[in-house]
C-alpha cells in the first residue's frame, strides 16, 4: 500500500535550517491501522503531511499504491489526494458555512459526481457515523465529537485507499475520544487502511501497530 525509503525533510528557519525528518523508512500494508507516536517536534506531523501530499519531501522515495509520488504538479496532486486519501484533522477543518451534508459531499463534488448522487452518498456516510438527523446543521451547531464524525464521514465519502488522521482526538474529551477511536477501529475491521498521528499512549494502543518517532528518525516499530 505504502512504501517510504530514506525520506528527508528540513525547514528553513531564518538563515539556518531545521532537519525534521532524517531518513525515514516505512512500509504499510493494506488493512493496517498504524499509530505514529512522538512528542512534539519529533516530525510525526511532517511525515503525515508528506504522506498526505500536503507537503513535499526534500529527498527519498514515497510510493503510494504502486505510484511514485514525486514532483507532482498542483493539478496532479489534487487528483491523487482526491482519489487516494481521506483526511481527518484535529480541528476538524469543516467549511463553516456548509452544513454537515454539504461538507461530506464536497470531495464528491471534486470527483465530478452529479448532485443527486453526491447527496445520496453523503447521506449514506452520515448514516454510517450516526448523524442522519444532523445532516442539515452547520458545524457551529454541532458538538466537537459530532463535528469529528462529520469530518470522518467526509474522509470516507471519496472512498479513499488510505485514511490519514492527524491527532483526531486532540480536541475531544476522553469518552468521546474512545468513541471516535472505536469507530475508526470498526472502519479498519471493514478493511480500511488507517494512519493515525497521536501523542497519547492510550489512543496509540487502540491501533494494531505503533511507530515511534524521535528527532526525525524511527525509534521503534511494534505490533500491538
Amino acid at each position, binding site marked *: 500500500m505504502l512504501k517510504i525509503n530514506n525520506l528527508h525533510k528540513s525547514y528553513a528557519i531564518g538563515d539556518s535550517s531545521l532537519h525534521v525528518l532524517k531518513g525515514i523508512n516505512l512500509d504499510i500494508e493494506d488493512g493496517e491501522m498504524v499509530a505514529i507516536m512522538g512528542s512534539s517536534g519529533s516530525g510525526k506531523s511532517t511525515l503525515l*503531511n508528506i504522506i*498526505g501530499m*500536503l*507537503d*513535499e519531501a526534500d529527498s527519498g522515495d514515497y510510493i503510494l499504491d504502486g505510484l511514485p509520488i514525486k514532483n507532482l504538479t*498542483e*493539478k496532479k496532486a*489534487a*487528483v491523487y*489526494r*482526491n*482519489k487516494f486519501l481521506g*483526511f481527518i*484533522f484535529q*480541528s476538524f*477543518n*469543516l*467549511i463553516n*458555512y*456548509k452544513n454537515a451534508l*454539504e461538507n461530506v459531499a*464536497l*470531495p464528491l*463534488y*471534486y*470527483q465530478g459526481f452529479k*448532485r443527486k448522487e453526491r447527496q445520496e452518498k453523503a447521506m449514506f456516510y452520515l448514516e454510517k457515523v450516526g448523524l442522519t438527523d444532523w445532516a442539515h446543521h452547520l458545524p457551529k451547531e454541532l458538538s466537537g465529537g459530532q463535528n469529528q464524525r462529520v469530518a470522518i464521514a*467526509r474522509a470516507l465519502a*471519496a472512498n479513499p485507499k488510505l485514511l490519514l488522521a492527524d491527532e483526531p482526538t486532540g480536541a475531544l474529551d476522553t469518552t468521546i475520544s474512545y468513541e471516535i477511536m472505536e469507530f475508526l477501529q470498526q472502519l479498519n475491521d471493514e478493511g480500511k487502511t488507517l494512519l493515525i498521528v497521536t501523542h497519547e499512549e492510550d489512543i496509540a494502543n487502540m491501533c494494531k501497530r505503533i511507530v515511534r518517532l524521535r528527532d526525525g528518525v524511527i525509534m521503534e516499530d511494534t505490533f500491538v
Partner: protein
Amino acid sequence: MFDIDLWREIFQSIKMNKTRSLLSGFTVAFAILLFAILFGIVNGLLNTFAEAFKDDAINNIVIWSGQTTKAYKGLQAGRQIQFKNADHDYILDEFGDKVEYMTSRVMLNVNASFRNEKNSYTVRAIHPDNLFIEQNSMQEGRYINQNDLVNKTKVVIIGRLVEEDLFTKTTALGKYLNLSGIQYKVVGVFTDDGGDDEERMLYIPITTAQLLYGNNDYIDMMYLTYNPEMDYDKALAFGVLMEKKLKNRFSIAPTDQRAIRVQNNAQGAKAVNQMSFGLGLMAIVIGFGTLIAGIVGISNIMIFIVKERTKEIGIRKALGASPRSIVSIILLESIIITTIAGYLGLLAGVGVLELATPVLKDYFIKDPAVSNTLVIGATITLVLAGTIAGYLPAKRASRIKPIVALRND
C-alpha cells in the same frame, strides 16, 4: 461551459458570507452612485449653459446707433447717428467673406386685428437672413424672401402664439391681418425656442416698412453672424475692426462709446466655451478620482477576502480541488457581486438625479442626467479592477500548500 454546481457553490458562498458580500458590494455601488451623481450634475450645469444660448445663433453680432457724446472733426456732440440701407451694403462689401448671415431691422409697434380679435405687437421689418440669425423654424408657409424685398410686398410672418391669440377659430395662413390700418397677407407661421416673447413677434419685409412708415431708407439696427470658421479671437478682431470702420464712416470719435455700439457674442461664447471646457475637465478629474477610489476599495476587499478564505482554500485543496477551480470560485464570486452592486449603484444614482431634478433647478442645474454608456463603462471598469485585484491573491492562494493554509487557525 455552464457548470450549475460551480454556480451553486458561488451563490451559497455569497449567501452565507453576508458581511463580506455586502462590504464589497457597497464599495462598488457607492462608487458608481457617486460617479453617476457627479456626472449628472456637471451635465446639468452644461445643459443650463446650452439653454441660455439657445435663442439666437451663438456667433451673433449686433450693431446699434445712438447719439455722439464727443465732438470730433468739427462736428458737435449730441448728433444722432442714423443707419441707412447703404450702411448695410457697406458692411457686406467691406467684410463679405467674414459675414455668414446679415439682416437689418426696423422696429414698429402695431395694433393687429383679425375679425374681432385684437392685440398689440412688435413688428420687426427684416431681411430674409433673419431666419438663420433668430433661428426661427417654420411651422407652415414660407419666410420673407428676396422677392418680397424687391416688390415691397405687404406680407407678414407671424409667431405661433400670434396665431393662437388672433386666429381662434381658423388658421392664419393665407388670411389678411390688419396691422394698424394696413392689410398684410399671412404667408408663414414660425416657432422659436427663445420663449413666448419671441413667438409673439411679427416679421415683414424691411423694404415694405421703409416705404409705408416714413418713405425713407432708415435702419434701426443691424444683426449679423460672423463666419463660424473664424475662431473667437479672429471674430473679436473682426468686431473691433467693423466698429472702427463704421465710426470712421460716420466721423465719430474713436473713443465715443455711445454713437455706435457693436455687441459681439464671440466674447460671451468664448467665456461659455471655456467654462464648459473647465466643467468637463472637472468632471473628468473628479470622475476618475471616484473611480480610482473605487478601484482601490475593491482591490483591498479582494485581498482581504482571499486572506479570510485561506483556510477554506486549504480544506478544498486537501479534498482534491484543483488550483483552477479555486481561482474561478473566488473570481466569479467577485464578478457577480461587483456587477450586481454596480447595477444597483447605477439605479440609485439615476434615481437620486431624478428625484433631485426639481430642487437642483434652483441652482442652475437643468435636467441632470448621465449617459448609460458612461456609467456602464465605469461599472465594467470596477468589475475588471476587482477581477484583476482578486486574481493575483487568488492565484497565490491556490498555490499555497494546503498544510500552510490549514495551519493558519
